[in-house]
């Protein structure tokens, strides 16, 4: 089943902060820090993004 959000995560750079649009269907900003991605997101006109911190490598989370 096609999952646009999953495809976005697969394409997103690792060890980064990613801002998704309000409906989580597109990446609106990518940055090395929280503050950078918030600034870029707001510059892109998206004030209520959903932020995701991508890990250094994708693995099931077990802390």
């Amino acid at each position, binding site marked *: 089943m096609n999952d646009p959000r999953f495809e976005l995560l697969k394409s997103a750079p690792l060890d980064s902060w990613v801002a998704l649009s309000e409906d989580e269907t597109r990446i609106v900003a990518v940055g090395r820090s929280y503050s950078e991605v918030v600034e870029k997101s707001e510059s892109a006109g998206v004030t209520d993004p*959903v932020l995701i911190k991508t*890990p250094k490598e994708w693995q099931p989370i077990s802390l």
Partner: protein
Amino acid sequence: MAANLAVNLKIPYKKYPAPGGFYYTAAIPVDISRPAKGSLRSKRFDAIIDSGAAGCLFHAAIGRAIGLGIESGQLEYTQGVAGKSKVYVFEIALHAAGATILTLAGFSDDLPIAGLLGMRGFFESFRITFDPASLQVELERFHRA
């Protein structure tokens, strides 16, 4: 009789990349602020619901964004399968699933993701049902008597 205003949400699991494929987990968008009303709120971020976590844990960058001086927090250590980690604890307001929960939460620069929702603060505030058949998590807000 008081109206029952319980929040009851069914949220689909989210799919994350993994080596050679993917995995599903329960995650929801949340935001946090300092406890005082009117405090600056973070942007919404993805947080994984983790019954194995003793408390809520957030990336330190989010704490700094809401004005916390991270290294001034109460120092605690957590023990995970990956070893011991240093976290700084603050009282915060967690805004999740339509509720605002005042709780203690840890902050760490070493967290590989944005946030984890654990026992203290989150599981003590919701009845949580993981349904692997429908790939959904159900959250029902409750208040201790």
